[in-house]
């Protein structure tokens, strides 16, 4: 079995987001970037499946500018066998990403495609479902547990009411929840070895995909600031304020 894992480079989750003064977006220059957190879970799960002897090859793919390649190298350092970097500049909307991934899936013919359930930059939560639609494959979204059989997966999904279990035939798309596993760290020797693993470069136009955004981003603003609150001096005062001023208890 072959697993394709899609990873995205995003602003690190611990960085304070700053909006650009001209309201055209958020500041990304000189800001720490990392792999989108649930994409780490996607890679980890693929590696675990390979370690269990149920997969032969893991291919990590990213779509983005030159530096996006770092996320593929990181995936290679924790166990992916091969990388693909599809170069594209600027905003690439989930619809375009899923079209690129579809083109790659048709070439690579993986049995499974894994990715994080959502990217923490645009918070769209679309790509996996869109790719499943374009390929007419089953979609197991928000996965917190995956059991692999020969021809199908049994996936436990994190839904608002609790847990849902579905069975999907292979080939399938899985989008991963943070609860799926605990991503490992890359060891220094493995980081060195990853530099020698093969990485294919291509562009979106090589694949015949137009990445021009369909959605116009008119402006990006700071969210409204909260009014400064007060400090209370003791618990009795706090409870009194909550009861009689804020009226929330």
């Amino acid at each position: 079995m072959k697993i394709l894992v899609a990873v995205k480079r995003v602003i690190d989750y611990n960085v304070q987001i700053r909006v650009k003064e001209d309201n055209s977006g958020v500041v990304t220059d000189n800001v720490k970037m990392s792999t989108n957190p649930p994409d780490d879970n996607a890679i980890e799960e693929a590696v675990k499946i390979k370690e269990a002897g149920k997969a032969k090859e893991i291919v990590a793919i990213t779509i983005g500018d030159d530096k996006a390649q770092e996320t593929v190298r990181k995936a290679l350092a924790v166990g992916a066998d091969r990388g693909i970097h599809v170069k594209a500049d600027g905003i690439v909307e989930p619809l375009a990403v899923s079209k690129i991934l579809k083109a790659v899936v048709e070439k690579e013919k993986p049995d499974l495609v894994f990715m994080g359930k959502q990217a923490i930059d645009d918070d769209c939560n679309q790509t996996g479902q869109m790719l499943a639609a374009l390929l007419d494959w089953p979609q197991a979204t928000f996965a917190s547990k995956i059991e692999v059989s020969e021809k199908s997966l049994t996936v436990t999904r994190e839904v608002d009411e609790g847990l849902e279990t579905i069975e999907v035939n292979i080939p399938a798309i899985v989008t991963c929840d943070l609860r799926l596993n605990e991503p490992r760290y890359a060891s220094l020797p493995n980081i060195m070895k990853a530099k020698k693993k093969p990485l294919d470069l291509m562009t979106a136009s090589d694949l015949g995909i137009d990445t021009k955004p369909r959605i116009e981003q008119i402006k990006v603003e700071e969210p409204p600031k909260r009014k400064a609150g007060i400090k209370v001096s003791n618990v009795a005062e706090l409870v009194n304020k909550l009861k009689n001023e804020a009226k929330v208890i």
Partner: protein
Amino acid sequence: MSVLLIAEHNNKELKPFTLNVINAATQIDEDVHVLLMGHSADAVAKSISEVSGVKKVIHVDNPTYENYLAENYVPVILNLAQNYNHIVSAANTFGKNLMPRVAAKLDTSQVSDIIKVISADTFLRPIYAGNAFATVKSNDSKKCITVRPTSFDPAPSSGGSAEIVKGESAEAFSPTKFVKKEEIKSDRPELGTARVVISGGRGMQSGDNFKLITAIADKLNAAIGASRAAVDAGYITNDHQVGQTGKVVVPDLYIAVGISGAIQHLAGMKESKVIVAINKDGEAPIFSVADYGLEADLFEALPQFLEELNKLNTIQK
């Protein structure tokens, strides 16, 4: 043209968030049609027809739709799509799973998680877990939109008298099978929808100490949250995590205990209506978003808090 809204339900009752989405839909266009796909869900169809603002209910009744699977819902929606400019659902796990599969089939770039309708093609949506707001305009002829339910008031559940029409089923998608759903049976409200949330951070010092929080949660009928630091330290399981990589919550009252207020935690709770922070470090960033800050040792403050709550004659539930 009209808005097609996909209802979420369990064949017995409508999920309350659908009402919030109906309100958002009426701000896009007055002609809101609700698609109900289920099995033996006539009572749900009737309740939707009574919601203020709904003009038509399309009821598709088939055993295939007893349990929701996006793969089975999508062909039915696509068959109806030509009559509509907008297709709308909630930005919860139901709609998030469903709508992109519709959008890709229609070759439409979806607008996710809107918090405000500016016009029929322009919307406000949070990005970076609410650390920035983007105003976006959709230029696709069909617009697929998910709505953050907590950003809109629910539409009144009475006052409407929409017609109910039967809709056509479509072929089931056999590669995906529903197996089971385990609803979390808890006396406590769900973290994502609770009116009150009380969360503990690294300052709790141990998992055992969360019993101080549990006691207050019981009293306030609150959900229990935690910071990533508390989860990483193993004090509590990660389904309690509030923050950018956990759950985003917007309760009426959020009580942060022993939480310093890391950026990624603030992203998950700072839209709460009233925020209380209890922390012994007066400089902790959590105080910058708190309406009421109490600089105190939580191990003294929490038992006192419970004691004060016990003195109250009534507590809102």
